[in-house]
């Protein structure tokens, strides 16, 4: 397959909707009021009513709205356009079937406070998903309530906290250290802080694995409540010593929380529960293909051991005979983490994904995801610096080390990839690798796409060596160039106002 750089596509310039507004236009039609009207003053007295006529809210027609959003949508890259190799984000194909079933009226029209007897289908669906996730993780206690990964993390570390408080009583106060590797996602320490833990950082070694000596040293210092570990870790390498790691933490009296961001490398192949992990969160919007939606909604179920299950959020969904019920009577629960039951719409999509794949298909997806990453790693290892020699799992990590001598950095390589029609990989994460590029192809790309990506990366390296400025000035094919983000933060303009342009420009 030969590479052609994409050229600018003819999308129109489209302003903000507020700049399109024309007095009197509407884009909706409500039925006429069919009840006898009450004088409005008798319903809500004037002093409690708005008197600003909704100043600034736009007035546009239906076709205005359609064109507005259709036009601005063309400025987005998306999975449906091509490979989206964002490491640790698992940008796999989002099946249209999942979208269809999530929109069945019996699901979308169901009120969360409807009587249990009249919501049996929704409870059954959640129960079935719980059962499948328990089997996939090897951890039998499941709550689907957390709304996203970070909330799943918070739930997980709060379970640890609740367990320790119950086990140790007052003495638990001396056990407030959460160990977190230097390569961890920023949400891990932020979630640990919410649960009242202080963070100590565990170093990784030259192989990209947890430094066992440092881990032991930190445990010997005492006060360890637990470890938050991503596995495969954020450099894409499986923590081979996982059993030993769990033993060390358990030996020190703590528990092990696993960040499930990278479960796409493990489903059907290995289970956190069998490794000694006590609690994990999953990202249904990564591993189970629910759409990322430009930044959510997600769904971050929390799965734990039998021992921790009594602390899971209320309510829990249980099966009694052939009926499903919500159990609110769990005195040791950490409490609710979200109103109602979580992002139910995402649960429908995830179960649909599991049904479509079956046990075989889930395992095959894992194998393909790992194979694709390994292939990219192998093809690019002579062109880009690879910080670790270990086998990668579902994502491969490189750095800009071979390109920096020409003044080309990771950011430039990322922007230049856009000109070749690809979304850039995750960049500058994890922080332990300077100028990191974390590439996760997922199972949703074939060999031709992988080859095209590899070739683009090699071309960019060639450009970096021969004509570095071309890469440094990238992208060249987009509607706008690189934005002055420093100026944007100096004088933030965060909402439209008629004079906002003048305010924003005064910053630069």
């Amino acid at each position, binding site marked *: 397959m030969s590479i052609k750089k994409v050229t600018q596509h003819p999308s129109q310039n489209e302003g903000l909707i507020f700049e399109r507004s024309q007095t009197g236009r509407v884009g909706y039609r409500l039925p006429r009021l069919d009840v006898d009207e009450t004088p409005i003053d008798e319903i809500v007295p004037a002093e409690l009513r708005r008197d600003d006529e909704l100043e600034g809210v736009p007035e*546009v027609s239906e076709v205005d709205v359609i064109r507005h959003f259709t036009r601005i949508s063309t400025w987005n890259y998306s999975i449906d356009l091509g490979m989206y190799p964002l490491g640790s984000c698992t940008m796999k194909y989002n099946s249209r079937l999942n979208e269809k079933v999530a929109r069945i009226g019996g699901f979308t029209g169901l009120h969360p406070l409807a009587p249990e007897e009249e919501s049996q289908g929704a409870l059954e669906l959640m129960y079935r998903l719980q059962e499948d996730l328990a089997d996939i993780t090897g951890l039998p206690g499941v709550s689907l309530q957390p709304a*996203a990964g970070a909330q799943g993390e918070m739930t997980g570390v709060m379970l640890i906290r609740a367990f320790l408080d119950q086990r140790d009583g007052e003495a638990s106060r001396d056990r407030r250290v959460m160990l977190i590797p230097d390569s961890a996602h920023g*949400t891990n320490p932020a979630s640990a802080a919410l649960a009242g833990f202080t963070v100590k950082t565990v170093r990784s070694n030259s192989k990209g694995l947890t430094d066992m000596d440092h881990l032991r040293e930190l445990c010997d210092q005492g006060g360890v409540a637990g470890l938050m570990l991503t596995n495969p870790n954020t450099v894409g390498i499986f923590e081979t010593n996982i059993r030993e790691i769990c033993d060390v933490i358990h030996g020190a009296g703590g528990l092990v929380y696993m960040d499930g961001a990278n479960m796409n490398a493990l489903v059907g192949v290995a289970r956190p529960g069998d490794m000694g992990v006590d609690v994990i969160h999953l990202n249904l919007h990564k591993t189970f293909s629910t759409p990322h939606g430009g930044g959510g909604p997600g769904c971050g179920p929390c799965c734990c051991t039998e021992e921790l299950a009594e602390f899971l959020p209320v309510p829990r969904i249980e099966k009694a005979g052939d009926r499903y019920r919500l159990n609110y009577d769990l005195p040791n629960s950490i409490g609710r983490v979200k109103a109602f039951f979580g992002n139910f719409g995402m649960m429908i999509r995830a179960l649909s994904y599991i049904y479509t794949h079956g046990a075989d298909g889930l395992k095959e997806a894992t194998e393909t995801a790992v194979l694709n990453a390994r292939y990219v790693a192998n093809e690019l290892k002579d062109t880009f610096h690879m910080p670790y020699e270990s086998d990668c799992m579902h994502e491969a990590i490189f750095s800009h080390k071979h390109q920096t001598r020409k003044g080309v950095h990771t950011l430039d390589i990322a922007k230049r990839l856009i000109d070749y029609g690809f979304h850039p990989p995750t960049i500058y994460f994890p922080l332990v690798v300077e100028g990191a590029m974390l590439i996760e192809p997922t199972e949703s790309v074939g060999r031709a796409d992988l080859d095209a990506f590899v070739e683009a990366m090699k071309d960019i390296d060639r450009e970096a060596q021969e004509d570095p400025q071309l890469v440094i000035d990238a992208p060249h094919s987009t509607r706008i160039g690189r934005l002055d983000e420093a100026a944007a933060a100096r004088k933030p303009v965060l909402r439209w106002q008629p004079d906002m342009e003048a305010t924003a420009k005064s910053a630069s």
Partner: protein
Amino acid sequence: MLASIGLSSEQELFRSIPEDVRLGRELNITDPLAEPEVIAAMEEMAAKNTAATKPSFLGAGVYSHYSPTIVDHLIQRSEFFTSYTPYQPEISQGTLQYIFEFQTLICQLTGMEVANASMYDGSTAMAEAYVMAQRVTRRDRIVVARSVHPEYREVARTYTQHGDAKIVEVDFDEKTGALSDTSTLDDQTAALVVQSPNFFGCIEDLKSLAEAAHAVGALFVVVVTEAISMGLLKSPGSCGADIVVGEGQSFGIPMSFGGPHVGIFATQNKFVRQMPGRLCGVAYDKNGNRGFTLTLSTREQHIRREKATSNICTNQGLIALAATIYMEAMGKKGLKEVAEQNAQKAAYAKRKISASVGYSIPFSAPTFNEFVVRGSGSAVETLEKLRGNGIIGGLALSKYYIDRPDEFLVCVTETASRSNIDKFVDSLNCDR
């Protein structure tokens, strides 16, 4: 491909995983289903949700509203729903621009100066407001009305249980259903938190509550669970709110058994660096082209780690888009009209019910589209009998307030037809 990387079997891909932690069996999951089989299985479960198709008067934080057809149509564009968080602004301007429009519209409706790109939902937004108020005031005491949604209060309790917060719940006035007693506010109070319309549908006197909060140096936090009400009621910002949090589900989002919905978080410019969540702002490229980018990220977890203002990362992007499309399609006129229809229909039902023998309206404060009805016996039983007539009549307050066994919460939106309202009231009369 295996051969090209020097392997002979899929097994070898996983050689870094020790044998003893590998799963030596197949997952205990169904065989793969074909597309029609998946649809059939899902439709079978959906059909068991019999409440979804019945006339319902449930509200309490989740509302049945009309959503223009274009809302669900537009959010299904690949470019919106299969894209990621806009970390690469050059190829994410579509997402960034709608976030900017969302932030603007939320500011206009709430009367606030700055709004973020969304939170998970109203309940978690309120929890974040507790934490932010403590950070801003360096005080620990949170005074919250018992008429704030009980599940929101539970969530906020979970979020703050390991921090320094001291949460004090204060009672509403038995006569009005609104909050009047502010005597618990003191100079250690970080925030006064009220919901309006509150859980019982009553509209709070936000202005005097704001004055009471500010008099002791506390922030005034207003929670809005029924976003449609903002089309008719005075904005919290114009009444003196320092933080407005809420639920945006009413803006064209299906009820979907409680989620995904979208949380609203708005405040004043002076607090912007203390806010949780993502913010999108205007930026220019070197040719002077206007664009948008995520900004002020030094508040966030990927930079500040354990010192971040919140642990939130993924939020509710696509649902914020749906709400944006809704607000724009409805526009200035529609947001007002739909709010008025809600108020009118609810007023009609309230009048008819209060005229029914054996039923009364216990709270005197003005209401928007929800109100409490007091019967002469168990509300649970009354609602069960209504269910026998094919009507989901509302929510028994005893679910959350065990001391109120004979009351239920009724919600009447623009989707309730007059004939269904009449049938509901007739059934109540028959039940007596």
